[in-house]
């Protein structure tokens, strides 16, 4: 049911804005990411503390807990993944952070370190499916979010061109999404998310609907693209291999009720290869751990 007029379920985020830092903190396109970023404090970009989300079923008046006591801290510029089985509430968590779902307890804070003028953090979101507006050209799809974020029109051509080029879709500006393959559509969605120069990029299993080869190619591209655009990333997936390959940090979630049972830091140096023995080894270890937790429950 679509009710864009209702205010229900809207942002209840407690913002904890830090004072704006100098403009030099903003990464320039093409500036490579190497170790801790220059001029950056080790402050966190996203803090979630003791988050509780309940759904109540109106018919049976039963209440069930979707998220129980979730806490995470994601540092600025960090690539963090949340890994968990399907239906464990990962997407709900992302929606809460994005401000489109309400929650019942705890604190969700976004620290827009690089935001000037206190306009609130820019959040880019890449969904499982591209969610493009099929009736608009690729270019206009990006214009849509730029208009939504009140980016001055004079900057639009440059932002469209840079970001489409970054995902390898230069020249597709005037094409319609329906003429593009699934992989290309997802690239447009990534370009759209990056076009608003997000402080935080939320990604909800962005490659799960693609075939293995396209997904692998996009993963490599993603690493490459993010090194240049470098926002803080919260990446949700059920694919451990993907998480280990991409992330700096992994939160592992279990179901019923959803909670985080382990936090893993991944110090394997970049650039990484999915077949790298450290990565494969770590994936195996984490997988075993997953099973031990899941089996202990059943």
């Amino acid at each position, binding site marked *: 049911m679509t009710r864009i007029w209702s205010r229900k379920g809207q942002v209840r985020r407690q913002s904890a804005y830090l004072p704006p830092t100098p403009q030099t903190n903003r990464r320039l396109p093409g500036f490579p990411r190497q170790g801790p970023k220059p001029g950056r404090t080790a402050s966190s970009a996203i803090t979630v503390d003791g988050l509780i989300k309940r759904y109540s079923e109106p018919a049976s008046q039963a209440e069930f807990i979707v998220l129980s006591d979730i806490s995470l801290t994601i540092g600025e510029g960090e690539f963090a993944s949340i890994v968990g089985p399907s239906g464990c509430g990962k997407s709900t968590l992302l929606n809460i952070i*994005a401000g489109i779902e309400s929650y019942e307890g705890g604190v969700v804070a976004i620290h827009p370190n690089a935001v000037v003028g206190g306009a609130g953090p820019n959040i880019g979101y890449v*969904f499982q499916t591209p*969610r493009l507006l099929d009736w*608009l050209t690729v270019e206009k799809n990006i214009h*849509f*979010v730029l208009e939504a974020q009140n980016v001055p029109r004079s900057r639009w051509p440059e932002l469209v061109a840079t970001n489409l080029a970054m995902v390898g879709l230069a020249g597709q500006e005037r*094409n319609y999404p329906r003429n593009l393959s699934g992989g290309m559509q997802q690239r447009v969605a990534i370009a759209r998310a990056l076009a608003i120069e997000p402080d935080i990029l939320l990604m909800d299993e962005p490659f799960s609907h693609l075939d293995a080869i396209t997904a692998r190619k996009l993963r490599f591209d993603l690493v490459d693209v993010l090194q240049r655009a470098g926002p803080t990333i919260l990446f949700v997936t059920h694919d451990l291999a993907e998480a280990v390959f991409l992330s700096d940090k992994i939160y592992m979630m279990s179901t019923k009720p959803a909670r985080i049972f382990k936090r893993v830091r991944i110090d394997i140096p970049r650039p990484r290869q999915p077949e790298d023995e450290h990565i494969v080894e770590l994936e195996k270890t984490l997988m075993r751990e997953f099973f031990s937790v899941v089996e202990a429950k059943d």
Partner: protein
Amino acid sequence: MLAEKIPYPTFLASLSPFFASLRPIAPSALTLAAGLVIWKLASLFFLPVFFPGPDMLARRIIEIYSQPSNYVVVAETLSRIFEGFLISMLIGTTLGLSMGLKRSIEIFFDSWIMVLLSFPAICWAFLSVLWFGISQTAPVFTIVLVVFPFVAMNIWAGTKAVESDLIAMGKVYRANRFLLLRSVLIPQLMPYIFSSLRTALSLSWKIALVGEAFGVGNGVGQQLINWFQDGRVDMMLAWGVGFMILMVLIDLFILRRWERCVFAWRSRIAT
């Protein structure tokens, strides 16, 4: 050996490229021709003024449209139709959209739409004559009251089919309501808007004639009444069919073309 088992149209097509180009329209053209022949044969049993044949009807239509004074009659009716059509589209779309977006409006108008839909059109026609007298307002009023509930219901149904995923996407990117409406909601409603346009137009012209017949004193509806009183079926049919052709042309050459432009994105090939 040759043409041994080739079906009839294919056989014709093999004779000349002209017949080959006719092949896609051949079946419907054939049934149409057969219908005309049956009609003509049936008409031979009756007086032409009581049951005219197709040739007779065609002659009458040409007669009507070759008389300049009749253009005024048609123009009067057309202006009423478009007035009523536009007002109904405006009210219907606004109401349907607000019903889809706001629960309280939906609850309030839900049963009223049903009431209006079920109310007989002929009653509106009489009532509007009593309320507004012999005037331009009466038939337009009738059209609006009959047509706008259809439009509202159609658009309302359309809002139920809107993809909430895309709305959520818009909200994440902090699109304001106006932008959501313009870029996300209305484009998804376009199929419903076009089907409403079609229904509204065809309903409008039918109701317009009824309204005119009851009390305006001019327009195509008045012509129908006049010829009815003289018992001239041929002229009544000629006015009715002639006007129908006009409305079909408007549908074909304005609405359909516009629709093709709007939905170009569905079939657009990479350029």
